[in-house]
């Protein structure tokens, strides 16, 4: 369970160009659900996602993860939580050029220092599940957009996180690849993962596997949508 209370996020505080990206967000996100934030550009979706994923801190407000208040934790602990709990799929994929698909997938596990053979096997297995086994040695820049996204998904799953965060995951994909992504999402939900994503792609927000769509505008939640019945 993720709970946000009175979340505000301001940028350039105290300067002329001070900007409030989030203006008092109160939210409760249940586990093992697929939640989508929808809204126009600048509505605060990505900022909210980065606060949920411990990538940034709120200017004020509290974030609870399970029973734990993580708002005031030092960076080291936040990193630890981020590594153990969250898997990220970024809009631009954010893969490291020059590294192979396999190396990119293994990267989040390096700081854990686990057994290399086990890590290697797990990364290969994930790439295999995503039909990329044959491309594991290819440099990331030689992969197509869809392949890159699947590598990003494999990377997000390497540490077996409970929560998958995806920011505009279909923004750079054509319809076929977007459908494919939704199928992967369905599989993730089927194995008990919580998925939180942002999108304004109808293919995503209107999909049956999305349990909850939350509309945002000007840093506020405007129309919280109740969890769709029968989707749990």
């Amino acid at each position: 369970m993720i709970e946000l209370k009175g979340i505000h996020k301001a940028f350039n505080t105290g300067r002329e160009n001070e900007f409030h990206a989030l203006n008092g967000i109160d939210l409760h996100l249940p586990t093992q659900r697929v939640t989508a934030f929808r809204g126009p550009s600048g509505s605060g979706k990505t900022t909210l996602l980065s606060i949920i994923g411990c990538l940034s801190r709120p200017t004020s407000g509290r974030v609870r993860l399970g029973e734990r208040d993580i708002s005031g934790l030092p960076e080291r602990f936040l990193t630890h939580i981020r590594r153990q709990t969250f898997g990220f799929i970024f809009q631009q994929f954010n893969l490291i050029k020059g590294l192979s698909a396999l190396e990119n997938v293994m990267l989040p596990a390096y700081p854990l220092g686990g057994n290399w053979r086990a890590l290697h096997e797990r990364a290969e297995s994930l790439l295999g599940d995503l039909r990329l086994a044959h491309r594991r040695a290819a440099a990331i820049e030689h992969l197509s957009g869809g392949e890159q996204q699947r590598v990003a998904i494999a990377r997000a799953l390497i540490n077996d996180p409970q929560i998958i965060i995806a920011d505009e995951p279909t923004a750079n994909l054509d319809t076929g690849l977007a459908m494919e992504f939704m199928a992967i999402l369905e599989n993730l939900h089927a194995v008990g993962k919580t998925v939180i994503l942002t999108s304004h792609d109808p293919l995503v927000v209107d999909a049956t596997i999305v349990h909850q769509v939350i509309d945002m505008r000007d840093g506020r939640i405007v129309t919280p949508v109740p969890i769709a019945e029968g989707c749990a």
Partner: protein
Amino acid sequence: MNARIEKQKYLIDFTLSSLARRKAKNLGLLLVYTLIVFLLASVMLFTHALRQAAAEVLVGAPEVILQRMVAGRHDLIPPGYLERIGRIRGVQHKEGRLWGYYYDPVVKANYTFMVPGNQDIAAGTLLVGAGMARARGLAVGNLISFRSYSGKLFSFTIARILPHDSELVSADLVLISEADFRSFFSIAPGYFTDIALSVANPLEVRNVAAKLSQQFPDSRPILREEILRTYESIFNWREGIVLALASLAILAFAIFALEKASGLSADEKREIGILKAIGWETGDVLKMKFWEGALVSLAAFLIGYLAAYLHVFRFSSSLFAPVLKGWAVLYPRFELSPVIDGFQVATLFFFTVFPYAAATLVPIWRAAIADPDAVMRG
């Protein structure tokens, strides 16, 4: 414990791939870095070995040399001085020496003519240093003529060329018999260029020198340790000149290193952001970058130092020899005994590897403590 070792292995592995991914930048940096270390290490190794060689040569030099001064200039020792010196307590051995300089207009070089105290040289023959033999193209048995300062022409046969391993001190040396020397330089019997003394008790050298000054107020005693000090200061001075010239290169390197190492490219900043976002701690990023800097600087240090070692001790410092050996026409050719001074190595290491490591870490630390949130925004 295993996890920690595995983690370090992963970090080093990633560092190596990171270095390989920025081949052009890192190779450029390695090249310039290596060049700087090579330059500095060459100068240091060369002057240190030269000092050592000079010190070894001077071990056999007389403990005190007495020179007579007239109007502040070195003049000949007149007859009678040797006998009087023999009466000073503490003087073990005394010897009047004959030596002088001769300018050879043919090769525009100065030779040092000397009468050796410990070997007889037949009249009309010369023993010459290898530097002079090279300059004049001489071989044993050749004839050579010199016009003396009185205008008279003298011809000599080359009896021997002095051994190559003494070239540091004998490159321009011409050994001549006493009779030929006196005749060539028009020096009357009983006169000497200076007097070399040995003292029975090494602790008494300064006392003997004080007595000499007292009894021969027109003369100055020169101690072996003073000569050694003079050599030291000459080498220090020359080393200083080269290092001063090199400092421009060092400064250029410092700017280059700072720019290359610290000026993180947008790609590198983005990469740090990605690593942080996917769960790398600031410390992990710093460790990885530390390994990167350490590998580049250590490799440059080792390659540069090794190249300098080969340059100095295998290839006779061909790049710096003209400045460091002197400006004479006759450059001595000699092979220096390899000498490595730990303190010098440590100094060089400290002034090349550490500044680079610091220059790389600070901006990386700045980038690494930034919010990884920016990565979310592409």
